[in-house]
């Protein structure tokens, strides 16, 4: 099995940057960990899930859909080099799988797949969570996995492109450490998992009264952060900027926590109260998606709970809900 010492990581990525458009975890100037380029800051593979969602490289907060000049829409050239995206955790990969399926369904979203199609996904796992805690092994769902065993990064390929990257590494080691991490990962329990499953059952059994959602709605300032940081939220709005002979259409992340999200042209709003919108946010992930896709669409990345200024992220709300109505 190939491995990389911590000292070799910078050279390893610098070499990959010659053939890929690199997006990897970096430490920004104030200590925020984010996905960026080698120019944005020092590489920061350690520390667990990134503060912002790595799926934004395929579906950014705002992007141009097309720019029409004199009524003509030119073809958008494909990216010159494929993306190599590093730093997804096991739950980030679940999220990516979920939105891949969403964007591929019905009208295939060419904007999304323009970047996503040939991208190489590199996961991180092992003892590189916050404070050296275990990030469970992804074991698939990606091209390559970098597994921190406490002293070096074990390189585990899962696809052809992942394999050829691994092949370029010279150093080899035994696979004992990987086995240990694989076993530990099997026993890794995220306490949030049981909570959201129990919350999901309560919601699907219709055991949560409207008054609960009124309370949650009272605490929501509609910052929209929960939606915007969620890797499985895919809703977007569309705007046209028209000037001179140009129409520039772009799309941007939208939020179901905004009244305008479902307000109809007449002014009628089927989600016209804070309570209804708060309910929808949780209900969609824990009750509606299981019916449509067969799985809860929260993979416990923790970002909405971290970003919410009033403590009503999905796990926090699920905890309250379970404590009061189970």
């Amino acid at each position, binding site marked *: 099995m190939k491995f990389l010492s911590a000292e070799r990581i910078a050279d390893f990525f610098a070499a990959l940057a010659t053939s890929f458009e690199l997006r990897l975890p970096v430490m*920004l100037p104030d200590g925020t960990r984010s996905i960026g380029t080698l*120019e944005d800051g020092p590489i920061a593979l350690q520390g667990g899930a990134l*503060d*912002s969602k790595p799926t934004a490289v395929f579906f950014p907060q705002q992007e141009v859909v097309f720019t029409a000049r004199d009524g003509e829409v030119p073809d958008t050239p494909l990216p010159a080099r494929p993306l190599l995206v590093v730093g997804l955790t096991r739950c980030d990969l679940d999220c990516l799988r979920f939105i891949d399926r969403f964007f591929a369904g019905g009208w295939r979203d060419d904007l999304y797949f323009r970047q996503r199609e040939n991208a190489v996904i590199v996961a991180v796992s092992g003892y590189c969570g916050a404070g050296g805690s275990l990030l469970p092994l992804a074991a698939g769902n990606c091209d390559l996995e970098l597994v921190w065993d406490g002293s070096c990064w074990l390189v585990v390929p899962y696809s052809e492109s992942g394999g050829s990257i691994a092949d370029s590494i010279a150093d080899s080691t035994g696979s004992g450490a990987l086995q240990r991490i694989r076993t530990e990962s099997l026993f890794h329990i995220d306490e949030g998992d049981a909570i959201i499953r129990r919350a999901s059952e309560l919601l699907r059994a219709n055991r949560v009264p409207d008054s609960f959602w009124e309370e949650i709605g*009272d605490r929501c*300032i509609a910052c929209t952060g929960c939606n915007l940081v969620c890797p499985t939220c895919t809703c977007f*709005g569309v705007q046209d900027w028209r000037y001179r002979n140009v129409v520039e259409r772009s799309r941007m992340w939208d939020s179901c926590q*905004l009244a305008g999200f479902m307000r109809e042209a007449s002014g009628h709003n089927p989600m016209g109260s804070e309570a209804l919108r708060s309910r929808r946010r949780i209900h969609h992930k824990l009750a509606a998606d299981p019916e449509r896709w067969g799985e809860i669409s929260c993979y416990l990345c923790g970002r909405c709970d971290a970003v919410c*200024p009033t403590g009503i992220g999905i796990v926090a709300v699920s905890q309250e809900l379970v404590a009061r109505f189970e």
Partner: protein
Amino acid sequence: MKKTLTVCPYCGTGCALYLVSDGGRLIGVEPSVTHPVSRGGLCVKGWNAFAFVQHPDRLTTPLIRRNGELMPASWNEALGLVVERLQSIQQRYGHDSVMFCSSAKATNEENYLLMKLARGVFFTNNIDHCARLCHSSTVFGLAETLGSGAMTNSIACFDQADLIFVIGSNTTEQHPLIGTRILNAVRSGTKLIVADNRRIRLARHADLHLRHKNGSDVALLNAMMHVIITEGRMNRPFIENRTENYAAFAENLREWTPERAAAITGLEAGEIVVAARLFAEAKNAMIVFSMGITQHSHGVDNVRCCAALALLTGNLGRPGAGVNPLRGQNNVQGGCDMGALPDVFSCYQPVADPGMRQKFARAWGVADLPGSPGLALTHAMDAAAAGELQGMFIMGENPLLSDPDQAHARQALQNLELLVVQDIFLTETAVLADVVLPAACYAEKEGTFTNTERRVQRLRKALEPPGEALADWEIICALAERAGYGGMRYSGPAQVMEEIAALTSSYGGISFERLDQHGLQWPCPDAKHPGTPVLHVDHCTRGPGRFSPADYRPPHETADDDYPFVLTTGRTYFHWHTGTMTRRSHLLDREERSAFIEINPEDAGRLGVRENDIVLVASRRGEIRVAVRVTGMVIPGVVFIPFHFAEGAANALTNNVLDPESSIPEFKVCAVRIRRIV
């Protein structure tokens, strides 16, 4: 891809965010997770702070009015014309015939430079900015009572208070990340009193919600203090050791029984007693206020009462307490600190003091500086309307929508011989200008903003300005150069801050290097000073805290038979002031698309109006058409209209009556009538 750490351009909370750009195009924001104020969160405006920056409406070239139309022109011609015409006016009418309006949206460095340009180059103290319209009464009232016209405490203190008394601040909408601290504190057991007759979000969480009549704050606060004194709940050691003028103050309160205040405020006497007891019983009580206190013809008196309540109960000089005016604009604190005010240089050093004038004249290399205070913004508009002011240079303000009595503001601006507007979009005011100068926005320049807790923070350039637009500081320096002044040649804003620090004791230890990451809170007098989270710790800035008695004066205009409703104005969560930026941000604009009026269901029934009906709202000064929102947010007899919308401009109705001491207009109370149209 590039991520640039900067400061949100909207409110005075001062949240930190990263602007994300790709190939010269902004594609989003990310919050800073380590920032002590925003702690990884943002409000909806912060999350959309990138959205207007590259809007096609941005000004990209100077414009000069030719044959009645604004036409593109070169910088050379525009700068030359501005200087030549300002000088020509001054030669004919005197130095004080021109007015400089600075901007709470611009950086500290830019406010300082415009102040320097007005005073040092054009020899006039006619400089002011929109602080006149929002917290001039705070600056005056707190300077008199405590010695420093700023928030006494820090945003972190909201986590340490046992009671928070919010009066006249819709905090979750106007300072959202501070509002969320209050919500969180309440869940952890902090008591909350909200005094505001609108049923704002905080009121839903309050232990006590006082829906007192508009403009009756002095009566309410005086009666609360009356109860505290008569029940012996005041902090006697604090009063003895730390204050002055208590005896006269207490004497003045003798008649302010809760019953008397009840008649004025419309509250039950018992509610006032409960509020007084709750406040006095709290170990650490914070007073939080904003425009609901300040924007009155008795705004300074309101502020005096807030300060007195803190002094009376000893809630000053320690974490979790204090008098906390929440400053509105991202840099309105800094605009004031930099001396973009008619009577003071940076950090409130009076222009009337010959020693101060000498100090600045020497530093700036000029022979002399003007000594008599200049015109306040509101007085300048009156002077222009009366034909007593000929030239106005406006940087980053939109008075046609933001000043009271729009017809008056329009007449004032149209009356000018020369109107120059420097802005990022062609605002309603810029449309009237003779010369328009295109400026870089916050994302396109370097500099510093000072937030409401006196935290001086760096903004950083994420991308180039559009077309030929230049940073405000570059334009100001170029104007100085054209006017023949060689003392404004800087390598960049960092060097301007060096000059500010050398002349301004509370910024003395501030430099760009030291501000990296999370900034510093002034006073920060020297290069080793860690900054000051809490003011007035051992003594007030002025020495003893001063009890300033205030007597109740009703609002200038109250409801009567002809105009039976009280109109109060303000903002919504999704828009910022005159909408220049937020109405060009897709999601924000979608949330609140047009002007509306909030009417209580009882009143709506009496008027025969329903949700979304269009009504004509008229005051003695003007009329507008707006859509009806029937809501219990307002009490019967009171209506609310936000002032963001040019097509339904609330300020067409408001009353240009000023507080005699601070010259702040009475935006919060005027009388209107309402008629259904559609």
